[in-house]
């Protein structure tokens, strides 16, 4: 049987698993709730970074999602392999003619789609409903940008979660590492790092490197790429990068860098899953 067929069969079964466990519905619920809150509260004539009305609401929602999506992705995936190992489902599946690569690819695909699809549904839905209810113009370009950045960020953290799940056998420990990874990705934005720099006199190059390599920071900058660069909103690293590589460069960095990190983590996780003892 071809690898593609194996992936399709594993994905179909895992999709049934995800659908039945209500994970897909929970994700959609969180996105919709958040979107509704931002539309209802955010559609005013005030402006944030030059964005008004629907643009402002979307801008605020995207920022909230940038902090929420990594946590959702990590929680959804950091226990995939170790829980399948513990409950015997991995043993059962791999006692059938399915390769390790087939199982890992199928499961990864479903877990990614289970997180991306609710995002791709909820945000445009919120924009359309908001625009028809409040007679606001939908900023399609920004919406597209936000969806691309969100998808790239999800891919990065889904892969990171899967990487954790292949390394850490204990599920509770995996959850703890998940929280630490998320906290680090949120803390290592340049605003927080400037505080560290002042407090502990860290070398500026270390602070710059940490901020520049953080995928959450890259995604935040990609969202802000269309705004006028200001030091107070972009932060020192973002401001420096915005002036060096420009708006398009920031957007490309914010989408490609998380994808590259995610691809590296996923390939490493796959290699480990293929070559190590399974149970």
């Amino acid at each position, binding site marked *: *049987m071809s690898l593609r067929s194996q992936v399709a*069969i594993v994905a*179909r079964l895992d999709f049934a698993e995800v659908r*039945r466990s209500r994970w897909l519905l929970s994700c959609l619920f969180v996105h919709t709730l958040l979107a509704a809150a931002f539309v209802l509260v955010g559609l005013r004539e005030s402006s944030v970074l030059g964005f008004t009305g629907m643009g402002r609401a979307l801008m605020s929602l995207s920022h909230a999602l940038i902090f929420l999506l990594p946590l959702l992705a990590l929680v959804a995936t950091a226990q995939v392999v170790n829980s399948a190992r513990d409950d015997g489902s991995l*043993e059962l599946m791999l*006692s*059938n*003619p*399915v390769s390790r690569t087939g199982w890992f690819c199928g499961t990864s695909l479903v877990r990614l789609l289970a997180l991306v699809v609710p995002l791709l549904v909820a945000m445009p839905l919120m924009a359309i409903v908001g625009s028809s209810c409040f007679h606001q113009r939908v900023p399609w370009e920004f919406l597209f940008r936000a969806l691309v950045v969100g998808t790239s960020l999800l891919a990065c953290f889904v892969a990171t979660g899967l990487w954790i799940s292949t390394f850490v056998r204990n599920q509770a420990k995996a959850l703890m590492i998940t929280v630490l990874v998320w906290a680090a990705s949120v803390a290592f934005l340049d605003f927080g790092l400037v505080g560290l720099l002042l407090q502990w006199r860290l070398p500026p190059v270390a602070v710059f490197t940490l901020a520049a390599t953080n995928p959450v920071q890259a995604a935040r900058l990609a969202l802000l790429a269309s705004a006028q660069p200001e030091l107070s909103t972009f932060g020192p690293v973002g401001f420096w990068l915005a002036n060096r590589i420009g708006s398009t460069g920031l957007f490309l960095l914010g989408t490609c860098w998380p994808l590259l990190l995610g691809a590296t983590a996923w390939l490493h996780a796959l290699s480990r899953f293929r070559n190590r003892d399974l149970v």
Partner: protein
Amino acid sequence: MRVELHGVGKRFAKVDALVGIDLVLASGSRTALVGPNGSGKSTLVRLLMGMLTGNGSIRLDTLDPAAHRNELARRIAYVPQIAPRLWATVHDLVHAVADLRGIETRRIDAVAERFELDLRSIARRPFRALSGGMRQKVLAAMALATDADLLILDEPTASMDPQSRAAFYRVLDELPQCPTVLLCSHRLDEIRQHVDRVVVLSDGRMIWQGASCLYLAEHTESVVELRAYGERAVTWLTARGFVLGSTGWWQCAIAQDSRADLVAAAFRELGSDVVDVLARDLERNEVRAVAS
């Protein structure tokens, strides 16, 4: 499928899970793998399925299961002792396994019917919502519906009722391909009736292997339980080492070959004072537990 293990070992961190296992299972043979918890049975099974890699050499019809797992998986079927608690429905699971194996789902339906399980009526139920016995029947049906040359059965009937257990072994006996069977089981009746060899593991080492009749003779004792009333019965039974249990049954552990003589003597000496009698075989350590 012929199974050969030479000097097979497996170490987890600082623990030797298996040490120096040498074993040959002839094609079409039926072997019971017995041993206490933690003796290495599951590790051995996982090595055979290519899920773990260890020391030494393992060959399934000349192929190394770790290197040729995908190729061999089609020829191996496995029934785990504990069914995973999947959210997916029975329909989803059965279809996934049938598609991976390239078999029709109606073959699985037909085997399940032999266990008095109608898969169509439970198709929409999540697998985890089934009772333990039903889950095990579904897994057994999926394994026995394949054309596997090697069946690895890890306490496959532990949660089944007696009728389903009997049906399971009937289906196993009727398999046209006469597969090699490796059965992890503690049930002496299963060993007596369904396997021809026994391999005993303890602390990761193989401490005994041989014909099942020899195993039963060497490793089991009989427990005779008897209900009798009257002063004469108390004296006679006490003199022969019987102990009175809390429910009124007298109990005595005895070598298998003396069992018939003891029961005959009890009827001869006590006559109508004997109300009921029961004799069963237990493993030696189980007999000690019963006696204590």
